């Protein structure tokens, strides 16, 4: 069984808000140099789902990521957890993409990988929270997509998946190959192993440029975007305080009720 897991490098969601500055003109967030990057936590759960299948029935787990100057400490983490191979779509051309151009590049890479029974993604990225990439990959590859999986049982050419719904979960069956997005209800991902950290230290990931996956630079990253950011700003919360008075407590309460009615709150 061949499993491809797509992961995204993001800024540590635990970083304090003071670590970031909003650049309104460029419509982007700028971080301080000290902010750590991490694997998107939902993607870690996708890696965990793949490794559970590998533990149970044996599988080759290939990890795929996209960006430029990707932090090797971050993108190698799935290898430290037990994945087998790392392929990076790494080039300046991949920078600034949206869900569309990202899904297009990742699906092109998956086609190049060839034999693939299952594609796993996190339910969404913890920075943009769009939740579109997994679905986009399935669309580009013409595969079924099951979202928000909390448990995946694979049986030769099909998978039984428990997917999270508002008031519980439902069980669906899908024919493989398929794309599945994994939700946090899957449970905690395993720790990286120290043995694997030492082992993968010298390991060089496979690097693919846009031309390696059959795409022109204009189809990737910012050039391939279909979503345009109109504005990026910090919301301003303003409050004015009005003291409602009265000669007695009862009168003050009545005046308060009148004011609330005037403001159509009551």
């Amino acid at each position: 069984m061949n499993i491809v897991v797509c992961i995204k490098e993001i800024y540590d969601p635990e970083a304090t808000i003071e670590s970031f500055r909003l650049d309104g003109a460029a419509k982007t967030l700028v971080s301080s140099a000290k902010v750590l990057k991490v694997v998107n936590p939902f993607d870690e759960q996708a890696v965990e789902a793949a490794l559970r299948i590998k533990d149970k029935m044996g599988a080759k787990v290939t990890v795929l990521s996209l960006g430029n100057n990707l932090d090797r400490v971050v993108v190698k983490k799935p290898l430290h957890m037990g994945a087998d191979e790392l392929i990076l779509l790494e080039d300046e051309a991949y920078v600034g993409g949206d869900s569309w151009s990202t899904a297009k590049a990742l699906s092109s890479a998956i086609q190049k990988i060839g034999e693939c029974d299952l594609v796993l993604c996190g339910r969404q990225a913890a920075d943009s929270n769009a939740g579109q990439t997994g679905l986009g990959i399935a669309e580009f590859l013409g595969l079924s997509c099951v979202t928000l999986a909390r448990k995946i049982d694979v049986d030769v050419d099909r998978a039984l998946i428990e997917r999270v719904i508002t008031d519980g979960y439902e069980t669906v069956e899908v024919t493989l190959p398929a794309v599945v997005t994994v939700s946090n209800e899957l449970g905690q991902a395993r720790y990286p192993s120290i043995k694997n950290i030492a082992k993968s230290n010298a390991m060089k990931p496979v690097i693919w440029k846009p031309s390696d996956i059959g795409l022109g630079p204009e189809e990737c990253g910012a050039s391939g975007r279909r979503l345009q950011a109109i504005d990026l700003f910090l919301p301003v919360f303003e409050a004015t305080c009005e003291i409602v008075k009265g000669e007695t407590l009862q009168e003050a309460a009545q005046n308060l009720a009148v004011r609330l009615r005037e403001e159509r709150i009551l």
Partner: protein
Amino acid sequence: MIDLNLPYLTEEHKSLAMLMKEFCEREVDLKKLNEIADQVIPPNATSAELRARMPWDLVSKAHDAGLRQIAAPTEFGGGGYGEDHVGLGVMAEVAGYYGGQLGRLFTIAWKQMAAFAYTKKDIAEEVLGDYMNDRKTMLGASITEPNSGSDYLFPYDEPGVTGQYLAKKEGDEWVFNGDKMFCTAGGVSNYLMLMARTEPKGPISKSVTQFVIDTRRPGWSVARVNDMMGNELVTNVQMHFENYRIPDRYREGPVNGAFDVMKSRLAGKSLHMFAVIGWAERTWEDMKEYALSRIQGGKPIVQHPNVGMLVAETDCMIRHCRLFLYQDAWEWQQIGQGQMRDVLGWYYINWYIKRVLMRLIEAGLEIYGGMAPQKELAFEHWVRLHLSIMHGGSTGGLSLVKAANIMARSGSPRPSDSNALYET
């Protein structure tokens, strides 16, 4: 937040640091650790009572994650990072930052691992076998005695002056009688790396032997608990030996050659300081947050020059001390076990970190003002932790005296002869 963008750190080091960060964020409940720390320890507590205070669930999880064993040799199933002082250093720093006293739970055992290079194979197998297979096996070390504290660490070397004649050879056994004084984790450890005078009349630097002590053998007991601030998890005890016997094979290194073995563990001692620098960074961040949010005179107090200056000054000192520690750890790694590129480095760090911590406490008292002594602030626990390191490894002043002596004798601003460490 720990800054991992340092030239000393490799990709592998950063991965290890991130593993430690993840472990602490997932598993460590600082409030729970502080609650244990706040429990009163009776001065006559037994070893069993001290072990009952330990957060074994956390220790067990650290074992499962491979963190407890990371410094043990790979041939025994450990991580094999015992000689990677920078790697262990950054892990200790992260453990200190995110896990408070947890940092010391790691570093106490990590620093002992270097000594196993001097241990006979069957003893190393026994001790490390227990450590690797039993999540409750703890390791510690012991040097000081009721009447010999800093002179043990700073040998004056007059014949027969320092240290009690603790261990005497009888046939193939060593027999111990007497006390050891300030032993961190002594009450909870199964094995101790212990220095004992074995030659009654010689100078201390040539009269001490190192042993592995199994605390489950008859004749060893906890004499009293030294209830130290900031050391409440692993605790600190005075130990008593009464006709305690171990075979000669439990000796580490040559008879009367303990100071050579000890040199190999000096780099390990700085691991405690890495943990403390992690605590210091966390303390400073808390202080900065307070200075940003506390409004006086219509503006945050960080904008008051007297407070802003303290925030900047302590930031500068912590950053500098941190770089000093990493430089020293890196230098240890370049030459090998028990050797030093800069003999003075160890003494300077031992002095400087104490200056930094004291200044941090001083700044905290100014910045928090009346809130500083309030137990509801994390500052109170941080102060305890800082004080716990300030007593360790001899006083800062003695470190400078020793450094000045070495410098004067060698005539070099950076003497690199490791033997100078224990010459007077």
